[in-house]
């Protein structure tokens, strides 16, 4: 169970490989589910040139560790990794990486999504977009389980 908050741009695939090599034996877990969220260059058709991600230091880490621990009590997980960017972000850069390893694919899928939805709903991060029409705080995240066209 690892939680990282980083102000540096990160390569999700390189991070996954490092984590796997250091912390895991792929002959044991069988199933890996990963979600990566990237910064898009527009929001509802309005170009977004950059983003600033603010967080609540301390509470963020506590909350993400609690989500990871909660997932580990609900599903048989071998490992989980959450990486979240803060600070200034450029379009195309990874914002969030959630990865879960388990012997069971249902557990990996379910736990990865559970962590991601809880993070979106409750982890204390806030996005401010730099748009052609000025700066704008993103007002809320859309729920992720309720249909085929949610964000």
């Amino acid at each position, binding site marked *: 169970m690892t939680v990282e908050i980083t102000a540096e741009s990160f390569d999700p695939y390189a991070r996954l490989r490092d984590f796997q090599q250091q912390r895991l034996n792929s002959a044991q877990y069988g199933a890996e589910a990963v979600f990566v*969220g990237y910064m898009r260059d527009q929001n509802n058709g309005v170009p977004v040139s950059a983003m600033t*991600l*603010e*967080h*609540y230091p*301390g*509470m963020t880490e*506590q*909350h993400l560790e609690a989500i990871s621990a909660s997932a580990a009590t609900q599903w048989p997980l071998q490992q989980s990794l959450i990486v*979240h960017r803060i600070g200034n972000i450029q379009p195309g850069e990874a*914002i*969030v990486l959630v990865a879960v390893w388990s012997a069971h694919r249902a557990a990996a899928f379910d736990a990865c999504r559970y962590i*991601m939805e809880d*993070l*979106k*709903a*409750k*982890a*204390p*991060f*806030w*996005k*401010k977009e730099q748009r052609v029409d000025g700066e704008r*705080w*993103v*007002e*809320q*995240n859309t729920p992720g389980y309720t249909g085929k066209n949610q964000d």
Partner: protein
Amino acid sequence: MTVTVKFFASLREQLGQHEIQVDLDGSECTVQEIWRRATEAKQLPANVLASINMAYAKLDAPVHDGDEIAFFPPVTGG
């Protein structure tokens, strides 16, 4: 009693402050009372979230000496 109050994101910008110390009489009050004291009784936004010592808390939750209280808008990470 003395508590630390933090504001984040749009709330931080609107109030023009990130972190303040608030001194109050007595040994307990509510989160809502902390807001009033910390903001000179500004109107509490309807969707504001609050935490006590980094755990989500309701507006009527009890606050004690030394606690860290935070107010922030809906979260938008991920």
